[in-house]
């Protein structure tokens, strides 16, 4: 699965995108995040505040219980502050 990171989350993780192969038990965006948190403290810090986490799958905003597969592109980012 291709994952994109933006803003504060991108800075915590230290990269703007990466390719991750999802373990079999992973079905939702929340599962993906839980999996990412096993990869290191930088991920744990990035997702430390779940209230400040937003997601999009294939360029559409989705809730964290949205189902994903390896062929989806997932984007993770904090609440928007444009305008």
């Amino acid at each position, binding site marked *: 699965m291709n994952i*994109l990171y*933006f*803003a*504060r989350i*991108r800075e915590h993780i230290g990269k703007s995108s990466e390719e991750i192969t999802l373990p079999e038990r992973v079905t939702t965006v929340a599962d993906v995040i839980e999996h990412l948190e096993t990869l290191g403290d930088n991920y744990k810090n990035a997702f430390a505040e779940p209230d*400040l986490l937003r997601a*999009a799958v294939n*360029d559409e*905003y989705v809730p964290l219980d949205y189902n994903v597969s390896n062929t989806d592109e997932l*984007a993770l*980012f*904090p*609440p*928007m*502050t*444009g*305008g």
Partner: protein
Amino acid sequence: MRISVQSDDFDIAAEIDLLKNKRTDLGAIATFTGLVRDIHGEKDIKKMTLEHFPAMAEKELAKIGTEASDRWPLQGLTIIHRYGELYPGDQIVLVITTSHHREAAFNAAQFIMDWLKTDAPFWKKEETEDGTHWVDAKRDDDKKKDSWG
């Protein structure tokens, strides 16, 4: 509907002219321009960097514009949002709405700004003498969006 996500500055007068384009049937034009302020809280802002999600930014602005057009009888609509490095006094965002009636033009422009704040994939990072920090989203902005129903 004209939607643009760009690093370059925009020209309000030129954008209004694009919408008017010699039309004589417009009754009202409302515009909103958001600018980089030189102070946030008590700290001087040296620079503001706007990060965005390129694949989604124009698409989401277009969705917001379409929603506004469904709610009010607009004759024309422009939304421009910049990204990249900006400095105090620089323009960030422009919304222009035209309608037969002033209420539709005002409400649609305000609606677009309220939705844009929470739904357009842009993130602001400020640089002060203490270093850089990401701007926190305001809970108040969610309320403003929700107030439109």
